[in-house]
Protein backbone atom coordinates (compact mmCIF):
# COMPACT_ATOMS: atom_id res chain seq x y z
CA UNK A 1 0.00 0.00 0.00
CA UNK A 2 2.79 2.34 1.06
CA UNK A 3 4.77 1.58 -2.14
CA UNK A 4 1.64 2.27 -4.24
CA UNK A 5 1.16 5.69 -2.56
CA UNK A 6 4.83 6.45 -3.01
CA UNK A 7 4.61 5.60 -6.75
CA UNK A 8 1.53 7.84 -7.18
CA UNK A 9 3.29 10.72 -5.38
CA UNK A 10 6.39 10.23 -7.49
CA UNK A 11 4.33 10.23 -10.68
CA UNK A 12 2.48 13.39 -9.57
CA UNK A 13 5.80 15.04 -8.68
CA UNK A 14 7.20 14.21 -12.10
CA UNK A 15 4.08 15.54 -13.82
CA UNK A 16 4.10 18.74 -11.75
CA UNK A 17 7.80 19.34 -12.42
CA UNK A 18 7.15 18.92 -16.13
CA UNK A 19 4.27 21.40 -16.02
CA UNK A 20 6.24 24.01 -14.04
CA UNK A 21 8.99 23.87 -16.68
CA UNK A 22 6.49 23.59 -19.57
CA UNK A 23 8.11 23.92 -23.00
CA UNK A 24 7.16 27.33 -24.35
CA UNK A 25 6.16 25.82 -27.70
CA UNK A 26 3.07 24.31 -26.01
CA UNK A 27 2.13 27.81 -24.81
CA UNK A 28 2.65 29.20 -28.33
CA UNK A 29 0.46 26.41 -29.75
CA UNK A 30 -2.33 27.03 -27.19
CA UNK A 31 -2.25 30.78 -27.88
CA UNK A 32 -2.32 30.32 -31.66
CA UNK A 33 -5.20 27.81 -31.37
CA UNK A 34 -7.29 30.23 -29.28
CA UNK A 35 -6.66 33.13 -31.70
CA UNK A 36 -7.42 31.06 -34.82
CA UNK A 37 -10.54 29.52 -33.25
CA UNK A 38 -12.10 32.89 -32.43
CA UNK A 39 -11.07 34.33 -35.79
CA UNK A 40 -13.06 31.53 -37.44
CA UNK A 41 -15.95 31.59 -34.92
CA UNK A 42 -16.31 35.22 -33.80
CA UNK A 43 -18.50 36.08 -30.81
CA UNK A 44 -19.61 39.63 -29.95
CA UNK A 45 -18.76 40.66 -26.41
CA UNK A 46 -20.62 43.37 -24.44
CA UNK A 47 -18.34 46.40 -24.04
CA UNK A 48 -18.54 48.69 -20.99
CA UNK A 49 -17.36 52.26 -21.57
CA UNK A 50 -14.86 53.60 -19.04
CA UNK A 51 -14.82 57.17 -17.69
CA UNK A 52 -11.71 58.37 -19.54
CA UNK A 53 -12.97 57.04 -22.90
CA UNK A 54 -16.34 58.75 -22.46
CA UNK A 55 -14.52 61.97 -21.47
CA UNK A 56 -12.48 61.82 -24.69
CA UNK A 57 -15.58 61.24 -26.78
CA UNK A 58 -17.32 64.19 -25.14
CA UNK A 59 -14.28 66.46 -25.67
CA UNK A 60 -14.46 65.78 -29.44
CA UNK A 61 -18.25 65.97 -29.54
CA UNK A 62 -18.11 69.42 -27.90
CA UNK A 63 -16.05 70.83 -30.80
CA UNK A 64 -17.95 73.27 -33.03
CA UNK A 65 -18.03 72.80 -36.82
CA UNK A 66 -14.86 74.21 -38.38
CA UNK A 67 -12.77 73.67 -35.22
CA UNK A 68 -9.03 73.23 -35.86
CA UNK A 69 -7.68 69.90 -34.64
CA UNK A 70 -4.03 68.86 -34.68
CA UNK A 71 -3.99 65.07 -35.05
CA UNK A 72 -0.49 63.71 -34.49
CA UNK A 73 -0.14 60.14 -35.77
CA UNK A 74 2.85 58.85 -33.84
CA UNK A 75 2.89 55.17 -34.70
CA UNK A 76 3.85 52.82 -37.50
CA UNK A 77 2.52 49.53 -38.87
CA UNK A 78 3.95 47.61 -35.88
CA UNK A 79 1.26 49.02 -33.60
CA UNK A 80 -1.49 48.86 -36.19
CA UNK A 81 -3.43 46.17 -34.28
CA UNK A 82 -4.05 48.46 -31.31
CA UNK A 83 -3.93 51.96 -32.77
CA UNK A 84 -5.48 51.68 -36.24
CA UNK A 85 -9.06 51.19 -34.88
CA UNK A 86 -8.58 54.26 -32.63
CA UNK A 87 -7.19 56.27 -35.56
CA UNK A 88 -10.12 55.44 -37.85
CA UNK A 89 -12.84 55.99 -35.22
CA UNK A 90 -11.40 59.38 -34.17
CA UNK A 91 -10.77 60.59 -37.74
CA UNK A 92 -14.30 59.67 -38.82
CA UNK A 93 -15.78 61.48 -35.81
CA UNK A 94 -13.70 64.60 -36.59
CA UNK A 95 -14.85 64.66 -40.22
CA UNK A 96 -18.45 64.05 -39.22
CA UNK A 97 -18.15 67.07 -36.90
CA UNK A 98 -16.81 69.08 -39.87
CA UNK A 99 -13.54 69.81 -38.09
CA UNK A 100 -10.40 70.97 -39.92
CA UNK A 101 -7.92 68.13 -39.46
CA UNK A 102 -4.21 68.98 -39.46
CA UNK A 103 -2.15 65.78 -39.35
CA UNK A 104 1.55 65.37 -38.73
CA UNK A 105 3.89 62.73 -37.32
CA UNK A 106 6.97 62.46 -35.11
CA UNK A 107 7.57 58.91 -36.37
CA UNK A 108 9.19 58.22 -39.75
CA UNK A 109 6.54 55.65 -40.71
CA UNK A 110 3.69 57.89 -39.55
CA UNK A 111 2.93 59.87 -42.76
CA UNK A 112 1.93 56.80 -44.84
CA UNK A 113 -0.34 55.76 -41.94
CA UNK A 114 -1.94 59.23 -42.12
CA UNK A 115 -2.52 58.75 -45.86
CA UNK A 116 -4.02 55.30 -45.29
CA UNK A 117 -6.34 56.71 -42.61
CA UNK A 118 -7.53 59.49 -44.92
CA UNK A 119 -8.08 57.01 -47.79
CA UNK A 120 -10.23 54.67 -45.67
CA UNK A 121 -12.37 57.30 -43.92
CA UNK A 122 -12.79 59.57 -46.95
CA UNK A 123 -13.93 56.74 -49.22
CA UNK A 124 -16.54 55.78 -46.57
CA UNK A 125 -17.70 59.39 -46.34
CA UNK A 126 -17.86 59.71 -50.13
CA UNK A 127 -20.18 56.69 -50.25
CA UNK A 128 -22.41 58.61 -47.82
CA UNK A 129 -22.31 61.65 -50.11
CA UNK A 130 -19.93 63.75 -48.01
CA UNK A 131 -16.83 65.18 -49.70
CA UNK A 132 -13.72 66.55 -48.01
CA UNK A 133 -11.03 68.47 -49.88
CA UNK A 134 -7.29 68.06 -49.26
CA UNK A 135 -5.70 71.35 -48.29
CA UNK A 136 -9.08 72.81 -47.34
CA UNK A 137 -10.64 70.35 -44.85
CA UNK A 138 -7.58 68.28 -44.04
CA UNK A 139 -3.81 68.20 -44.57
CA UNK A 140 -0.92 65.80 -44.04
CA UNK A 141 2.10 67.84 -42.92
CA UNK A 142 4.34 64.77 -42.88
CA UNK A 143 7.17 63.75 -40.57
CA UNK A 144 9.30 66.04 -38.44
CA UNK A 145 12.49 64.86 -36.73
CA UNK A 146 13.53 66.18 -33.34
CA UNK A 147 11.13 64.61 -30.82
CA UNK A 148 10.61 67.10 -27.94
CA UNK A 149 12.29 69.98 -29.75
CA UNK A 150 10.05 69.38 -32.76
CA UNK A 151 6.92 69.48 -30.55
CA UNK A 152 8.05 72.77 -28.99
CA UNK A 153 8.73 74.18 -32.44
CA UNK A 154 5.36 73.02 -33.84
CA UNK A 155 3.72 74.83 -30.93
CA UNK A 156 5.34 78.15 -31.76
CA UNK A 157 4.91 77.97 -35.56
CA UNK A 158 3.33 75.26 -37.69
CA UNK A 159 4.34 76.95 -40.94
CA UNK A 160 8.01 77.34 -39.95
CA UNK A 161 8.21 73.75 -38.74
CA UNK A 162 6.43 72.39 -41.83
CA UNK A 163 7.25 74.73 -44.76
CA UNK A 164 5.59 72.19 -47.12
CA UNK A 165 3.01 69.46 -46.64
CA UNK A 166 3.65 65.74 -47.32
CA UNK A 167 2.93 66.31 -51.03
CA UNK A 168 5.34 69.25 -51.28
CA UNK A 169 2.77 72.09 -51.39
CA UNK A 170 3.85 75.24 -49.51
CA UNK A 171 1.83 75.26 -46.27
CA UNK A 172 1.58 79.08 -46.34
CA UNK A 173 -0.57 78.78 -49.49
CA UNK A 174 -2.94 76.05 -48.28
CA UNK A 175 -6.45 77.34 -47.41
CA UNK A 176 -6.58 75.20 -44.23
CA UNK A 177 -3.44 76.92 -42.90
CA UNK A 178 -4.65 80.50 -43.37
CA UNK A 179 -5.12 82.85 -40.40
CA UNK A 180 -3.40 80.83 -37.71
CA UNK A 181 0.04 79.40 -36.86
CA UNK A 182 0.50 78.32 -33.24
CA UNK A 183 -1.02 76.01 -30.64
CA UNK A 184 -2.95 78.98 -29.26
CA UNK A 185 -5.09 78.75 -32.43
CA UNK A 186 -5.72 75.00 -32.10
CA UNK A 187 -9.02 73.87 -30.55
CA UNK A 188 -7.93 70.33 -29.74
CA UNK A 189 -4.66 68.41 -29.83
CA UNK A 190 -4.94 64.66 -30.36
CA UNK A 191 -2.04 62.23 -30.44
CA UNK A 192 -2.33 58.57 -31.33
CA UNK A 193 0.95 57.30 -30.05
CA UNK A 194 2.88 54.11 -29.44
CA UNK A 195 5.72 55.40 -27.24
CA UNK A 196 8.39 58.09 -27.06
CA UNK A 197 7.86 60.63 -28.61
CA UNK A 198 4.15 60.46 -27.94
CA UNK A 199 1.45 61.49 -25.52
CA UNK A 200 3.67 62.25 -22.49
CA UNK A 201 6.03 64.41 -24.59
CA UNK A 202 3.09 66.31 -26.10
CA UNK A 203 1.69 66.98 -22.61
CA UNK A 204 5.06 68.26 -21.39
CA UNK A 205 6.02 70.34 -24.43
CA UNK A 206 2.69 71.49 -25.89
CA UNK A 207 -0.30 71.03 -23.58
CA UNK A 208 1.23 72.45 -20.41
CA UNK A 209 3.05 75.27 -22.27
CA UNK A 210 0.19 76.48 -24.49
CA UNK A 211 -2.72 75.21 -22.38
CA UNK A 212 -4.18 73.59 -25.48
CA UNK A 213 -6.99 71.08 -24.76
CA UNK A 214 -5.62 67.59 -25.37
CA UNK A 215 -6.76 63.96 -25.66
CA UNK A 216 -4.74 60.86 -26.58
CA UNK A 217 -5.01 57.35 -27.90
CA UNK A 218 -2.21 55.03 -26.84
CA UNK A 219 -1.24 51.37 -26.65
CA UNK A 220 -2.25 49.39 -23.55
CA UNK A 221 1.30 49.42 -22.15
CA UNK A 222 1.48 53.22 -22.31
CA UNK A 223 -1.96 53.91 -20.79
CA UNK A 224 -0.89 53.49 -17.10
CA UNK A 225 1.46 56.48 -17.60
CA UNK A 226 -1.46 58.70 -18.61
CA UNK A 227 -3.64 58.28 -15.49
CA UNK A 228 -1.82 61.04 -13.51
CA UNK A 229 -2.27 63.47 -16.42
CA UNK A 230 -5.95 62.59 -16.72
CA UNK A 231 -6.42 63.12 -12.98
CA UNK A 232 -4.65 66.50 -13.16
CA UNK A 233 -6.84 67.45 -16.18
CA UNK A 234 -3.87 67.90 -18.51
CA UNK A 235 -5.63 65.27 -20.58
CA UNK A 236 -9.35 65.59 -21.15
CA UNK A 237 -9.57 61.86 -21.84
CA UNK A 238 -7.67 58.95 -23.38
CA UNK A 239 -8.02 55.55 -25.01
CA UNK A 240 -5.86 52.61 -23.92
CA UNK A 241 -5.16 49.83 -26.42
CA UNK A 242 -7.66 47.72 -28.32
CA UNK A 243 -10.11 47.72 -25.39
CA UNK A 244 -10.16 51.54 -25.43
CA UNK A 245 -10.77 51.47 -29.19
CA UNK A 246 -13.68 49.03 -28.75
CA UNK A 247 -15.21 51.33 -26.12
CA UNK A 248 -14.83 54.25 -28.51
CA UNK A 249 -16.39 52.32 -31.38
CA UNK A 250 -19.38 51.70 -29.12
CA UNK A 251 -19.68 55.43 -28.36
CA UNK A 252 -19.45 56.50 -32.03
CA UNK A 253 -21.97 53.79 -32.87
CA UNK A 254 -19.79 51.97 -35.40
CA UNK A 255 -18.60 48.62 -34.05
CA UNK A 256 -15.59 47.57 -36.11
CA UNK A 257 -12.20 45.95 -35.94
CA UNK A 258 -11.65 46.58 -32.20
CA UNK A 259 -15.09 45.32 -31.17
CA UNK A 260 -14.49 42.15 -33.19
CA UNK A 261 -11.11 41.77 -31.52
CA UNK A 262 -12.53 41.82 -27.99
CA UNK A 263 -13.42 38.11 -27.97
CA UNK A 264 -9.87 37.20 -29.07
CA UNK A 265 -8.31 39.50 -26.48
CA UNK A 266 -10.64 38.16 -23.77
CA UNK A 267 -9.81 34.56 -24.66
CA UNK A 268 -6.04 35.23 -24.76
CA UNK A 269 -6.14 37.07 -21.42
CA UNK A 270 -8.09 34.18 -19.88
CA UNK A 271 -5.60 31.68 -21.28
CA UNK A 272 -2.62 33.60 -19.84
CA UNK A 273 -4.31 34.04 -16.44
CA UNK A 274 -5.25 30.35 -16.45
CA UNK A 275 -1.67 29.33 -17.25
CA UNK A 276 -0.25 31.65 -14.58
CA UNK A 277 -2.63 30.35 -11.90
CA UNK A 278 -2.07 26.72 -12.92
CA UNK A 279 1.70 27.29 -12.87
CA UNK A 280 1.51 28.73 -9.36
CA UNK A 281 -0.73 25.90 -8.15
CA UNK A 282 1.66 23.30 -9.59
CA UNK A 283 4.65 25.06 -8.03
CA UNK A 284 2.93 25.17 -4.64
CA UNK A 285 1.89 21.49 -4.81
CA UNK A 286 5.42 20.50 -5.79
CA UNK A 287 6.86 22.45 -2.89
CA UNK A 288 4.31 20.84 -0.51
CA UNK A 289 5.12 17.28 -1.69
CA UNK A 290 8.87 17.86 -1.45
CA UNK A 291 8.50 19.40 2.00
CA UNK A 292 6.40 16.43 3.19
CA UNK A 293 9.01 14.03 1.78
CA UNK A 294 11.76 15.92 3.55
CA UNK A 295 9.90 15.73 6.88
CA UNK A 296 9.41 11.94 6.47
CA UNK A 297 13.12 11.47 5.84
Amino acid sequence: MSTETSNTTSRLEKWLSAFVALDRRWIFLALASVVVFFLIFPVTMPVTVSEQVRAMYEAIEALPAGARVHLSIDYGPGSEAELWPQHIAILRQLFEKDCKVICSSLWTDGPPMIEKGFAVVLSDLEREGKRKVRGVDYVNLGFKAGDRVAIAKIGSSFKETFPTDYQGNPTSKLPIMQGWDTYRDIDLLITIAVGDPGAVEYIQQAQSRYNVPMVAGVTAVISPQLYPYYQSRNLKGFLGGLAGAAEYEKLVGRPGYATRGMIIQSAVHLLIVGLVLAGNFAQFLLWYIQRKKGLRL
Partner: protein
Amino acid sequence: MRNRIPVLISAFVGIFMILKYFSTAATIKRVADELEQWGVVTLSFSIVLGVLNLIKINLKAVMERKKDWGYKLLLLVSMFTMMIAGGIKWYREETLAQSGDGSTTAIKNTLFDFMFDHVYFPLSATIFALLAFYVASAAFRAFRAKNIHATLLLVAAVIVMIGRVPVGGAIWSGFPWLQEWLMTWPNTAGQRAIQIGAAIGMIATGLRVIFGIEKPYLKG
Protein backbone atom coordinates in the same frame (compact mmCIF):
# COMPACT_ATOMS: atom_id res chain seq x y z
CA MET B 1 39.27 77.06 -25.25
CA ARG B 2 38.18 73.87 -27.03
CA ASN B 3 36.14 72.93 -23.95
CA ARG B 4 34.89 76.42 -23.11
CA ILE B 5 33.07 77.21 -26.38
CA PRO B 6 30.76 74.13 -26.27
CA VAL B 7 30.00 74.86 -22.58
CA LEU B 8 29.14 78.47 -23.42
CA ILE B 9 26.93 77.42 -26.33
CA SER B 10 25.01 74.89 -24.22
CA ALA B 11 24.62 77.42 -21.37
CA PHE B 12 23.33 80.06 -23.83
CA VAL B 13 20.83 77.65 -25.42
CA GLY B 14 19.70 76.22 -22.07
CA ILE B 15 19.12 79.63 -20.49
CA PHE B 16 17.08 80.89 -23.47
CA MET B 17 14.93 77.76 -23.55
CA ILE B 18 14.14 78.21 -19.83
CA LEU B 19 13.51 81.93 -20.25
CA LYS B 20 11.10 81.29 -23.13
CA TYR B 21 8.94 79.21 -20.84
CA PHE B 22 8.62 81.93 -18.19
CA SER B 23 8.98 85.19 -20.13
CA THR B 24 6.65 86.95 -22.57
CA ALA B 25 9.37 89.28 -23.92
CA ALA B 26 9.36 89.28 -27.75
CA THR B 27 13.18 89.23 -28.06
CA ILE B 28 13.54 86.16 -25.88
CA LYS B 29 10.76 84.41 -27.78
CA ARG B 30 12.42 85.26 -31.12
CA VAL B 31 15.83 83.97 -30.04
CA ALA B 32 14.38 80.82 -28.46
CA ASP B 33 12.24 80.12 -31.57
CA GLU B 34 15.33 80.43 -33.75
CA LEU B 35 17.26 78.08 -31.45
CA GLU B 36 14.41 75.57 -31.61
CA GLN B 37 14.54 75.73 -35.40
CA TRP B 38 18.28 75.06 -35.29
CA GLY B 39 17.60 72.15 -32.96
CA VAL B 40 15.10 70.62 -35.40
CA VAL B 41 17.52 71.06 -38.32
CA THR B 42 20.45 69.61 -36.36
CA LEU B 43 18.39 66.62 -35.22
CA SER B 44 17.24 66.03 -38.80
CA PHE B 45 20.88 65.62 -39.77
CA SER B 46 21.18 62.79 -37.23
CA ILE B 47 18.96 60.72 -39.56
CA VAL B 48 21.43 61.28 -42.42
CA LEU B 49 24.27 60.41 -40.07
CA GLY B 50 22.44 57.23 -39.02
CA VAL B 51 21.90 56.16 -42.63
CA LEU B 52 25.56 56.82 -43.52
CA ASN B 53 26.71 54.86 -40.49
CA LEU B 54 24.40 51.96 -41.40
CA ILE B 55 25.79 51.90 -44.95
CA LYS B 56 29.40 52.08 -43.74
CA ILE B 57 29.10 49.24 -41.20
CA ASN B 58 27.02 46.89 -43.35
CA LEU B 59 28.91 47.53 -46.60
CA LYS B 60 32.19 46.73 -44.82
CA ALA B 61 30.72 43.48 -43.46
CA VAL B 62 29.46 42.49 -46.93
CA MET B 63 32.80 43.30 -48.62
CA GLU B 64 34.72 41.27 -46.05
CA ARG B 65 32.18 38.40 -46.16
CA LYS B 66 31.72 38.53 -42.39
CA LYS B 67 29.17 36.40 -40.46
CA ASP B 68 25.57 36.89 -41.72
CA TRP B 69 26.80 39.07 -44.61
CA GLY B 70 23.81 37.89 -46.65
CA TYR B 71 21.37 39.53 -44.23
CA LYS B 72 23.40 42.73 -44.28
CA LEU B 73 23.31 42.75 -48.08
CA LEU B 74 19.53 42.26 -47.94
CA LEU B 75 19.28 45.18 -45.51
CA LEU B 76 21.26 47.45 -47.86
CA VAL B 77 19.27 46.39 -50.94
CA SER B 78 15.94 46.90 -49.09
CA MET B 79 17.04 50.28 -47.78
CA PHE B 80 18.15 51.58 -51.19
CA THR B 81 15.06 50.18 -52.93
CA MET B 82 12.79 51.96 -50.44
CA MET B 83 14.87 55.16 -50.67
CA ILE B 84 14.68 55.17 -54.49
CA ALA B 85 10.92 54.42 -54.45
CA GLY B 86 10.39 57.21 -51.89
CA GLY B 87 12.56 59.57 -53.95
CA ILE B 88 10.52 58.91 -57.11
CA LYS B 89 7.25 59.52 -55.24
CA TRP B 90 8.65 62.70 -53.69
CA TYR B 91 9.89 63.94 -57.11
CA ARG B 92 6.51 63.33 -58.78
CA GLU B 93 4.59 65.04 -55.99
CA GLU B 94 7.05 67.93 -55.84
CA THR B 95 6.75 68.43 -59.62
CA LEU B 96 2.96 68.40 -59.34
CA ALA B 97 3.03 70.85 -56.42
CA GLN B 98 5.33 73.24 -58.29
CA SER B 99 3.36 73.04 -61.54
CA GLY B 100 1.26 75.84 -60.10
CA ASP B 101 -2.13 74.36 -60.98
CA GLY B 102 -3.13 74.62 -57.33
CA SER B 103 -3.65 70.88 -57.15
CA THR B 104 -3.17 69.35 -53.69
CA THR B 105 -4.01 65.79 -54.67
CA ALA B 106 -1.77 63.03 -53.37
CA ILE B 107 -0.30 60.68 -55.98
CA LYS B 108 -1.53 57.19 -55.16
CA ASN B 109 -0.50 53.65 -56.12
CA THR B 110 3.20 54.41 -56.47
CA LEU B 111 5.97 51.82 -55.99
CA PHE B 112 6.59 53.29 -52.54
CA ASP B 113 2.91 52.82 -51.59
CA PHE B 114 2.96 49.25 -52.89
CA MET B 115 6.08 48.35 -50.88
CA PHE B 116 4.84 50.13 -47.76
CA ASP B 117 1.43 48.42 -47.91
CA HIS B 118 2.46 44.96 -49.07
CA VAL B 119 5.99 44.46 -47.71
CA TYR B 120 6.84 46.79 -44.81
CA PHE B 121 3.35 46.90 -43.29
CA PRO B 122 2.77 43.11 -42.94
CA LEU B 123 6.38 42.44 -41.91
CA SER B 124 6.32 45.11 -39.20
CA ALA B 125 2.92 43.99 -37.90
CA THR B 126 4.08 40.34 -37.85
CA ILE B 127 7.18 41.12 -35.78
CA PHE B 128 5.05 43.04 -33.25
CA ALA B 129 2.39 40.30 -33.18
CA LEU B 130 5.03 37.73 -32.23
CA LEU B 131 5.43 39.65 -28.98
CA ALA B 132 2.09 38.24 -27.75
CA PHE B 133 3.55 34.72 -27.82
CA TYR B 134 6.66 35.73 -25.90
CA VAL B 135 4.60 37.73 -23.38
CA ALA B 136 2.40 34.68 -22.72
CA SER B 137 5.43 32.44 -22.22
CA ALA B 138 7.24 35.01 -20.05
CA ALA B 139 4.12 35.61 -17.91
CA PHE B 140 3.81 31.87 -17.25
CA ARG B 141 7.39 31.70 -15.98
CA ALA B 142 7.72 35.08 -14.27
CA PHE B 143 4.46 35.45 -12.34
CA ARG B 144 5.26 33.06 -9.49
CA ALA B 145 4.18 33.81 -5.91
CA LYS B 146 7.65 33.35 -4.41
CA ASN B 147 7.37 36.09 -1.78
CA ILE B 148 4.91 38.78 -0.64
CA HIS B 149 6.00 41.33 -3.30
CA ALA B 150 5.77 38.82 -6.12
CA THR B 151 2.35 37.71 -4.82
CA LEU B 152 1.09 41.32 -4.82
CA LEU B 153 2.32 41.75 -8.39
CA LEU B 154 0.66 38.49 -9.42
CA VAL B 155 -2.71 39.43 -7.86
CA ALA B 156 -2.65 42.93 -9.42
CA ALA B 157 -1.69 41.54 -12.83
CA VAL B 158 -4.48 38.94 -12.76
CA ILE B 159 -7.11 41.55 -11.76
CA VAL B 160 -6.00 44.03 -14.44
CA MET B 161 -5.75 41.37 -17.15
CA ILE B 162 -9.21 40.01 -16.41
CA GLY B 163 -10.87 43.34 -15.58
CA ARG B 164 -9.56 45.11 -18.70
CA VAL B 165 -11.39 42.82 -21.17
CA PRO B 166 -15.17 42.35 -21.53
CA VAL B 167 -15.02 38.75 -20.29
CA GLY B 168 -13.98 40.07 -16.83
CA GLY B 169 -17.33 41.76 -16.31
CA ALA B 170 -19.09 38.62 -17.50
CA ILE B 171 -17.27 36.48 -14.90
CA TRP B 172 -17.80 38.92 -12.01
CA SER B 173 -19.16 42.45 -12.22
CA GLY B 174 -16.58 43.60 -9.64
CA PHE B 175 -13.57 42.86 -11.90
CA PRO B 176 -13.83 46.00 -14.12
CA TRP B 177 -14.37 48.22 -11.07
CA LEU B 178 -11.43 46.65 -9.20
CA GLN B 179 -9.22 47.02 -12.30
CA GLU B 180 -10.19 50.68 -12.69
CA TRP B 181 -9.55 51.32 -8.97
CA LEU B 182 -6.06 49.76 -9.23
CA MET B 183 -5.23 51.88 -12.29
CA THR B 184 -6.73 55.11 -10.93
CA TRP B 185 -5.27 55.09 -7.42
CA PRO B 186 -2.26 52.82 -6.70
CA ASN B 187 -1.02 53.05 -10.31
CA THR B 188 -1.44 56.84 -10.45
CA ALA B 189 0.37 57.28 -7.14
CA GLY B 190 3.26 55.11 -8.33
CA GLN B 191 3.44 56.75 -11.76
CA ARG B 192 3.35 60.23 -10.23
CA ALA B 193 6.17 59.35 -7.82
CA ILE B 194 8.30 58.08 -10.72
CA GLN B 195 7.48 61.12 -12.90
CA ILE B 196 8.21 63.66 -10.15
CA GLY B 197 11.47 61.87 -9.33
CA ALA B 198 12.47 61.82 -12.99
CA ALA B 199 11.53 65.51 -13.41
CA ILE B 200 13.68 66.55 -10.42
CA GLY B 201 16.54 64.49 -11.87
CA MET B 202 16.10 66.20 -15.25
CA ILE B 203 16.12 69.67 -13.65
CA ALA B 204 19.32 68.80 -11.77
CA THR B 205 20.95 67.39 -14.93
CA GLY B 206 19.82 70.44 -16.94
CA LEU B 207 21.36 72.83 -14.42
CA ARG B 208 24.57 70.81 -14.33
CA VAL B 209 24.81 71.03 -18.15
CA ILE B 210 24.03 74.78 -18.18
CA PHE B 211 26.68 75.48 -15.52
CA GLY B 212 29.20 73.27 -17.33
CA ILE B 213 29.55 70.77 -14.47
CA GLU B 214 28.41 67.97 -16.74
CA LYS B 215 29.61 67.82 -20.35
CA PRO B 216 28.13 64.70 -21.98
CA TYR B 217 28.46 66.29 -25.45
CA LEU B 218 32.27 66.39 -25.11
CA LYS B 219 32.54 62.64 -24.57
CA GLY B 220 33.08 59.97 -27.21
